């Protein structure tokens, strides 16, 4: 089977800081990947590169077998990569269906003159997708600010699924949720993967990640230090890899710093050459 997403040698620097350093990762259809690491390990930067928020300084991304250059978040959305951030990126003053259709509103002709919002259509379509994912919210006409954290999460996920996300990235999906709601969200992740949509989850809650992820990728100081099949590892091992008390699979992080800096420079110049061509 071919990976749906493959990132190769991704490097992202901010001034003197190398946030992501020569990172490789593959995600296959239906897989749930737990992306783990301490604060500042580079997880968020990596997913922002994949979702088009940042441009990598070096490296390539393959999506559905083809090399892609993801220019901006909208481009990522268009090709089917959806990212759910910690703050969920919902407009709290708008209602549920308005958020599901935000930026992609369904319009209808008014008096043959001007395009107006088609509220009925958006309401019905939103109902359908919530039903499909077995999500319950009090009313789709309620403002997001009246919903609980779990309901908001569910709305955000419904939005991605409605827009045919082929690939979902979730940043701390269960943070700030009650226990029952955490379970709902994790069940939702399982539903997604059973429908063939792979998910990358970033979370500090190892328990959650272990309960849904099929594969774990561990980062430290911007580098990938290990990759494990969830059922073949233990939380102890993973914690050791995260904090650095266990050595990674690819040599010690500090040793590689010099070498990758050089690689970064070379690929950096290649990158400039490509931009020149465009």
């Amino acid at each position: 089977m071919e990976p749906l997403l493959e990132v190769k040698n991704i490097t992202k620097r901010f001034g003197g800081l190398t946030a992501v350093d020569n990172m490789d990762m593959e995600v296959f259809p239906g897989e749930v990947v737990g992306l783990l690491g301490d604060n500042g390990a580079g997880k968020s930067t990596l997913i922002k590169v994949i979702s088009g928020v940042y441009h990598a300084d070096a490296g390539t991304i393959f999506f559905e077998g083809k090399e892609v250059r993801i220019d901006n978040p909208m481009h990522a959305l268009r090709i089917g990569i959806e990212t759910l951030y910690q703050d969920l990126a919902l407009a709290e003053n708008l209602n549920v269906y308005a958020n599901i259709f935000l930026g992609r509103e369904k319009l209808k002709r008014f008096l043959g003159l001007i395009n107006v919002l088609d509220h009925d259509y958006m309401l019905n379509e939103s109902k359908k997708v919530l039903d499909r994912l077995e999500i319950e919210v009090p009313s789709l006409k309620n403002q997001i600010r009246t919903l609980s954290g779990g309901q908001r999460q569910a709305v955000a996920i419904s939005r991605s699924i409605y827009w045919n996300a082929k690939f979902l990235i979730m940043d701390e999906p269960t943070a700030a949720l009650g226990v029952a709601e955490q379970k709902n969200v994790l069940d939702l992740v399982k539903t997604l993967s059973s429908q063939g949509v792979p998910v990358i989850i970033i979370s500090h809650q190892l328990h959650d990640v272990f309960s849904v992820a099929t594969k774990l990728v561990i980062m430290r100081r911007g580098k990938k230090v290990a990759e494990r099949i969830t059922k073949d590892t233990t939380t102890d091992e993973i914690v050791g890899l995260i904090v650095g008390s266990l050595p990674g699979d690819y040599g010690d992080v500090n040793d590689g710093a010099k070498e990758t800096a050089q690689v970064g420079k070379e690929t950096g110049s290649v990158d400039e050459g490509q931009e020149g061509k465009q």
Partner: protein
Amino acid sequence: MMNNKNFSKILVHIAARWTLIFLALEVIFFSVFGTNYFSLRNLQNILLASTTVALLATGETFVIITGGIDLSVGFMVGFSGVICAKVMVTLQAAGASQAVAISSGILAALLLGLVPGLVNGLLVAKLRVPPFIATFGMLGIAYGFAEIISNNVPIMGLPTSVGSIGHGYLIYWLPGKIFAFLQKPENLTRLELQNLVSIIPNVTVITAIVIGIFAFILARTKFGQHTYAIGGSMDAAERAGINVKRHLIKVYMISSFFASLAGVTYVLRFITGRAPAGSARLLDAVVAVVIGGASLYGGTGTILGTVIGVLIIGALEIGLVNLAIPTYNLYIAVGCILIFAVLVDQFFPELVRKE
């Protein structure tokens, strides 16, 4: 017997419509204590007196919903008014017909009036200057240019038709005899003139149409929806693929368009262009928007609410005149209302933010 929960629900409903109730009480109060307050002529006076505030406040509503503020609109009225008058006077002196001079003046004012909005928008959206600062700076710049263009004196000697537009009415009705649109009947006896009923000032017609169009845009279109979304969460809007920067620029241009239109209507009504025209109306406009239910934190507000806010101020202003109370009391009243409305927003957000 009503239970407590229902009762508090009803209270919330009433509180959410406090502006309408306040307006009604105001009109009743002045009708009782004033002279001829509740008459067609006087109610039309309220509408006329509210023209500038209504236009400024409508544009300001868009800006405030995005979470910004446009302070430049006060002096923008003078800026565009002076341009409008200057072009008319200059063209007339060059021998152009009244129609050409007047339409060119209006067009020039509306077009050039977009420039300060564009600059405001660029500063706020692209260079991330706080809206308060960017538009405050523009306030001074617009005023300075207005004084330069007008050479520090009101521009007089406008084409005579300006007055007949600005002082004209949509309908003229002489009971039993004449029913005319736009054109004031000629050759009337003095008695007939006294009995002639003029209905809806032209300026109010223009104002209402333009405000109606933008109320529709805000309430029903994608543009309106995105305006709310930006005010609710700029991040969410951006991540949903909305071009937030471009949208903000458009919103500030809408605001300055309305300010320019207010300048044009000022010229039509007063047949002169003055640099400081409308500057005192900035406060009223912001107050009207806030009374109307918009939060200065962004994300809420409607044009209908704003219009009610405008009418509250207009009815109060005319009412004070009617009772021969000096109008500077209006500033005090309006300032108090603003602070009160913002306090309500801050401490009882659920009253204002209900959909």
